[in-house]
């Protein structure tokens, strides 16, 4: 670590040094420097992640777990080291509690199918929130449809904060699981997950947390949260696409039947009978995304190197500045004004559809996201068809916020003509 980095705590994040780690930031879009503010959809990858993937393919590419030859041993060790790295990153009690998946979506589907489904009956209830991403909503809807169970919802207020005092009423003896997003991708809200867990656990109800937008911005500690399941997507936290994980308490994983069948998840197979492997392998059927896990480990190292608190502090500065600058726009309404927010600003503007805003600012190099952000019920709650959303990562700067604001002024002017 350079001296520059070592004193990051004293003088904040060295954003220019971070930017140099991201090759894509050299890119121009429509002849303007890229201003990438679509980090909540997927963030960019630092050199060390790209090189970790590259290194695997160039130096020790092999299948894992099943080989005695050197490459396979190296690949297996790197793959398991990634599991251990993620366990440590989430402060999980054991590596065995980390199941690699494609991302949050697959993690939730795994819990739905393997943990909840086998015991869910008509009349049972699943409790989620009004601001869930479809990933933590649709699997439960499908399950309820299938079993006759009921999906119930923790409501929120006009700022996008959950009505915490309603949670204990909404939980009853038929509640089989509470599912809550840690940080909302559509509104930015950081939910009081530990409080919700406390309420739920007092009633003996397990809690699943969607951590997609939390791991890049918060110090996540699954033991402190006291949740049962925590879902992660690599591509949201500087890692590769196609990899993510489910953390779950070992006791749950051990009790859960496998979901997908195939190689790797078995111990012994005959045509008549199969016995399954130990956790977590029981849930990892087939050849895993080896390069993805290795790249994810490099992303965790990236976060550790720069320090997630320092990153968060910087992002919060960008959030505050953006919120302030946007408040000067006529007819602009920020959707989601919770007290605790991740670095996400969703907004609508009178006379300017989000889609048109997106297209126009793109021509000034600014990448932002428009639409429902896979959280349609939240859009319906705020009665907006879509929002435009900017979301930040470690490499964003105040100058980029300025570039975005200038582009947004142009968009507003253009659409007002």
């Amino acid at each position, binding site marked *: 670590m350079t001296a520059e980095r070592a004193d990051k705590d004293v003088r904040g994040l060295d954003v220019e040094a971070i930017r140099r780690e991201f090759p894509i930031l050299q890119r121009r879009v429509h002849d303007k420097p890229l201003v990438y503010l679509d980090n909540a959809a997927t963030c960019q990858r630092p050199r060390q992640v790209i090189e970790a993937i590259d290194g695997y393919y160039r130096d020790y590419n092999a299948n894992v777990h099943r080989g005695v030859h050197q490459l396979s041993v190296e690949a297996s060790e790197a793959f398991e080291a990634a599991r251990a790295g993620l366990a440590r990153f989430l402060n999980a009690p054991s590596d065995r509690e980390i199941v690699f998946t494609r991302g949050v979506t697959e993690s939730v589907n795994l819990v739905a199918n393997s943990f909840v489904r086998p015991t869910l009956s008509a009349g049972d209830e699943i409790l989620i929130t009004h601001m869930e991403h479809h990933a933590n909503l649709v699997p439960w809807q499908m399950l309820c449809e299938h079993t006759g169970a009921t999906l119930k919802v923790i409501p929120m207020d006009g700022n996008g904060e959950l009505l915490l005092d309603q949670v204990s009423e909404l939980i009853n003896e038929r509640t089989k699981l509470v599912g809550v997003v840690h940080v909302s991708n559509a509104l930015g809200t950081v939910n009081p997950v530990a409080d919700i867990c406390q309420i739920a656990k007092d009633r003996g109800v397990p809690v699943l947390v969607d951590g997609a937008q939390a791991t890049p911005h918060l110090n996540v500690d699954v033991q402190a949260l006291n949740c049962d399941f925590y879902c992660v997507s690599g591509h949201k936290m500087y890692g590769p696409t196609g990899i993510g994980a489910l953390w779950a308490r070992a006791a749950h994983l051990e009790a859960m039947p496998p979901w997908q069948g195939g190689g790797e998840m078995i111990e012994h197979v005959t045509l008549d009978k199969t016995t399954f492997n130990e956790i977590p392998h029981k849930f990892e059927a087939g050849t895993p995304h080896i390069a993805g896990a290795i790249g994810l480990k490099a992303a965790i190292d990236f976060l550790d190197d720069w320090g997630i608190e320092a990153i968060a502090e910087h992002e919060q500065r960008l959030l505050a500045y953006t919120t302030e600058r946007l408040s000067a726009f006529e007819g602009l309404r920020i959707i989601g004004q919770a007290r605790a927010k991740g670095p996400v600003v969703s907004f609508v503007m009178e*006379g300017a*559809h*989000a*889609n*048109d805003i997106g*297209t126009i600012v793109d021509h000034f190099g600014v990448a932002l996201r428009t639409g*429902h952000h896979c959280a349609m019920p939240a859009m319906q709650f705020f009665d907006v068809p879509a929002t435009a959303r900017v979301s930040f990562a470690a490499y964003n700067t105040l100058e980029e916020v300025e570039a975005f604001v200038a582009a947004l002024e142009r968009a507003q002017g253009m*659409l007002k003509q």
Partner: protein
Amino acid sequence: MLDRLYQKVILEHNKAPNNFGSMADATHSARGTDALCGDDIQMWLRVTERTIEKAQFSGEACAVTKACASMLTEWLEGRGVDEILPAFEAFQALMDDADRPPVEALGQLNHLRSVGAFPARRANAYLPWKTVLEAMQIPSGLT
């Protein structure tokens, strides 16, 4: 390029669309949504003996969709039902090939050809068309 997409005529249709509002005596109607971008429109048609007497639209949408719906409703009036699909096909061909000369029969809808350069926005220009075809139950073959 951006100026061609947000040219004056399109912006004017966006701000003050023609034939906007629901139609009490429509014979055909359909809802068209593009959940991804938040478009949600209703196309209304009054058809007598396979001729479109009147077309309107309502709902919320982005500038491209609104401009297209506005122009399309104007274009539809007086047209035969069987003209719609061929016209839509000509419209799509325009989008795919920036060098193609304007199609006279499409009238002011030719202005929308600039959308072709914005792949993420084509669906917006197609939505009013597809919704009309659905209202008339004409299979479009477009997904």
